[in-house]
């Protein structure tokens, strides 16, 4: 890696952190999304209100603002709880912020997918003697998952790119490594271009995975 003045390895390490950050945010974000969707479809008005408010607020503000709010607000909360100044872990703050953002979109996707499964499917499952949980798990969810796959995958790719903003509060991922390498070599264009190429490979691989799973998921429909 003579081209990158020995920083190639550092950038690759950064890419690994980026993937870890994205994977952790995806898992936590999906949980937030499931929770948000469950609240939005809940019978209680208060729960529905909170579920919709969550999605509406997060979707209306920039992710960077959410990252700042979690990072600085989280530091202050921890400080007031423990009584001394604590620096919050940037990886954790990043995962929480990115997951909050992803969850808001995931909730909308999940709600749309669940509602698009015809009511008759649920009724048919119930009339066959399945209880509510069984009907949801074996009849409604498999059909909804197929509908949600494409938008969910696209949002995951957005998430992968959005991990870059966590570098602003100092999380040690690809963007951060590129910034450090730029400072050390005084070749910011080379370093950011290298980072851009790595992101391109990551999003390209994610797109291929998504296309493959979409093909697999649509296969059963034909038979």
């Amino acid at each position: 890696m003579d081209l990158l003045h020995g920083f190639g390895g550092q950038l690759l390490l950064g890419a690994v952190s980026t993937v870890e950050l994205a994977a952790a945010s995806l898992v936590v974000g999906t949980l937030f999304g499931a929770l948000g969707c469950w609240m939005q479809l809940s019978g209680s008005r208060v729960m529905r209100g909170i579920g919709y408010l969550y999605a509406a607020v997060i979707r209306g503000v920039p992710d960077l603002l959410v990252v700042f709010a979690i990072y600085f607000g989280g530091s202050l909360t921890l400080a007031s709880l423990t009584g001394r100044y604590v620096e919050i872990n940037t990886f954790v703050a990043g995962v929480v912020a990115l997951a909050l953002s992803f969850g808001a979109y995931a909730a909308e996707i999940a709600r749309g997918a669940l509602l698009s499964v015809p009511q008759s499917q649920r009724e048919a499952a119930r009339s066959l003697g399945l209880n509510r949980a069984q009907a949801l798990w074996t009849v409604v969810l498999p059909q909804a998952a197929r509908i949600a796959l494409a938008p969910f995958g696209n949002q995951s790719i957005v998430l992968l790119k959005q991990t870059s903003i966590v570098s602003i509060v100092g999380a040690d991922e690809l963007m951060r490594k590129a910034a450090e390498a730029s400072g050390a070599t005084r070749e910011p264009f080379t370093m950011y271009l290298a980072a851009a190429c790595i992101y391109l490979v990551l999003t390209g691989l994610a797109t291929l995975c998504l296309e493959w799973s979409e093909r697999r998921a649509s296969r059963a429909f034909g038979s």
Partner: protein
Amino acid sequence: MVGASRVTRVRQLTMFDFSLVWTVLPTLGKGALLTLKLTALIVMLGTLLAFPVALCRNARSRTLRVAANAYVMFFRGTPSLVQVFLLYYGASQFQAIQHSVLWPVLRDPFWCVLIALGLNSASYTGKTLAAALAAVPRSLREAAFSLGLSRIQAFWTVDLPLAVRAALPAFGNEIILTCKATSLASTVTLLDLTGTARLLTSETYAPYEVFLSAGLVYLAINYSLMFATRRLEALLDHSR
């Protein structure tokens, strides 16, 4: 001790201070003006550039198609933050640029954000527009030709109006995404809404109040934008 005084401040500020929201709102308003200005200019630049991108993507020439696809792939496949940094920090690497007429523009963070996010927006809008243009039924164009319209006339009076109307919902979404993306301006020293909020936080040590206020301003802007684009869609929709 700095640390000790900071802790006392922290303790004093654990309660949510509503009066602080009113104090910071005027300053945040100034930041919001820059956010709005950037959003408007980026959307304009992005829309303007979306037309050549869309035409190249649908062009008969293979070279043009490959070039447009590569452009769209780069801007959609990499984070906007890399694009902004590549232009703002990257340009300084080259002596040739520093001595050229471009330098006053590329040295200015405002122009860098505008150009980087404008190019980014053009890739998204261009892709939508290309798909919308390709979806215009052939029969409509043939009907236009048979009425004696030239290719250019048919494009302007038949293809484009239909494509624009079809692309409008996605375009409205793109405006809101652009407004949110302008928050990246704060990473290259600009005092937009996010940048101002960050500055106010370091001055007041009150992240809850400041970021909540900034969030409310963003919500007001974005939901107004959403309302406006929905109205525009309804106005242009003659089928109803």
